[in-house]
């Protein structure tokens, strides 16, 4: 628990000084305007909930990929990984705390989107099921943190994977149905997209923004949770394997 808390506090301090890394949070309001402009031009103001949700989900994924995904790789580059592994604190605990901090900060994308829509387009998207909406957001964040854990290990385990890091944005925005629901895409994409927790989250969040009762709530939440926990377990195993391999090969740092 101490490792987790320390990791969390440390990352919050780091994020305060590395504004440039949170670029997705800077562009989120502009992306909200992009999506809103398109739906307004298309005469479909009823799709405003889609337009404000999409940038928030993009921020969540983008920040996890760029910041959380880089955590171990950066520790290795700035030569702090060696010292961290040598301490008696749980490395997985510290990493989890750091990823939690990054994920929580990225949730501000939701507030930004809503605010940008209201301030520029005077569009106030109501949240008819606020408690449920917050619950879905938190479970989505949990799943994101689990997935980020996998990313951070994979980018170190397979250095070639880092070359493809940038490629893991838009394909997942399509598969995750962040703006266009999977049901509108070709049928063959559905089985693949259902393995991506974002596709469940985006559908569920959109449903929570509709006044009608949310259908199959428990089972859909459970799927997001299962996908997130599975990713976290896999991520921890990969992190352990990564650190073991770096220890064995004496390559905890590049120096």
């Amino acid at each position, binding site marked *: 628990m101490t490792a987790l808390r320390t990791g969390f506090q440390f990352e919050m301090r780091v994020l305060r000084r590395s504004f440039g890394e949170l670029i997705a949070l800077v562009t989120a309001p502009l992306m909200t305007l992009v999506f809103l402009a398109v739906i307004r031009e298309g005469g479909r103001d009823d799709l405003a909930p889609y337009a404000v949700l999409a940038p928030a989900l993009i921020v969540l994924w983008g920040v996890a990929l760029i910041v959380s995904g880089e955590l171990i790789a950066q520790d290795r580059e700035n030569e702090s990984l060696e010292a961290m592994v040598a301490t008696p604190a749980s490395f997985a605990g510290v990493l989890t705390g750091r990823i939690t901090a990054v994920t929580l900060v990225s949730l501000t994308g939701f507030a930004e989107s809503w605010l940008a829509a209201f301030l520029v387009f005077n569009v106030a998207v109501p949240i008819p099921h606020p408690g449920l909406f917050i619950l879905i957001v938190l479970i989505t964040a949990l799943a994101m943190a689990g997935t980020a854990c996998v990313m951070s290990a994979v980018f170190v385990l397979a250095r070639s994977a880092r070359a493809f890091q940038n*490629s893991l944005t838009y394909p997942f925005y399509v598969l995750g149905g962040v703006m*266009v629901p999977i049901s509108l*895409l070709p049928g063959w994409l559905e089985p693949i997209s259902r393995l991506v927790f974002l596709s469940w989250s985006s559908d569920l969040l959109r449903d929570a923004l509709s006044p009608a009762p949310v259908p199959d709530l428990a089972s859909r939440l459970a799927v997001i949770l299962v996908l997130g926990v599975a990713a976290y377990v896999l991520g921890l195993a990969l992190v352990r394997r990564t650190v073991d391999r770096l220890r064995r090969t004496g390559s905890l740092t590049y120096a």
Partner: protein
Amino acid sequence: MPDLLRPVRVLRYSAGNAWADMWVIFSPLTWILGWVSRVLVQVVFFALIGLLLDSDDAVRYLFVGNAVMITAMEATMSVTTTTWERRQGTMPLLVAAPTRLWPVFVGRSVQWLPTGVITASVALFALGPAFGIEWTPAQAVVVLACLAVVAVATYCFALVLSAIVLTAMDLHNVISNVAQAITMLIAGVMVPVSFWPGWVEAIAQALPLTHGLAAIRAVTDARAVGPVAGEVAAGLVLTVGVGALWLLAAAVLLEYLAAAGRRTGSIEFAE
């Protein structure tokens, strides 16, 4: 007598540097599988919003706009690569060299010009037919030429941003990404420029992409090039003109930066 060819020579060496950089960042495999594929999916992502609007016209509009946006986006990536020069600590040497600073930076990130044109071409010509855009050979040639003009003119615009970023290195990501997002928003990529209030429309006129994209849309919306040749030519002239003004502004800013840096001793060997 001044050596008039010196800036050209410097530009050529600097372009060689840029090209070498390109193949340090990417191998041909990672460029194709990692970069080009990602960018193509980006175009598809935005075009699919047309499905949500249940409008084939919207799919087509968004597809063309976002495919051409790729060229502008890659040209704007020069803002980031320009900062590498300062990070590598070569600025004092460049300032001390018996040449101007601006040709160095004009050549420093040219790798993004051909890559931007190629990626957008793959999107338009290979993916386009799946999104309802058919091409005649003449249309394809004209659009290819337009993409090249858009790339160069947007690069000139990005050089001004690069010069600004050289004085505020921590903001390189912010400035390039915000510039890209604003371009996407107001230059006719997602919605017509006329969607915005007059003052936003006026700002959009200062972006080379606004005019280049209008020329490309004229071609894609017509059955043949002939009837829209005048419109395309006018769009390209405006693109080149706006680009030339940005290039002039970039050269002035870069020279001012060099002079101010000499005076204040603020050009360091490394960040």
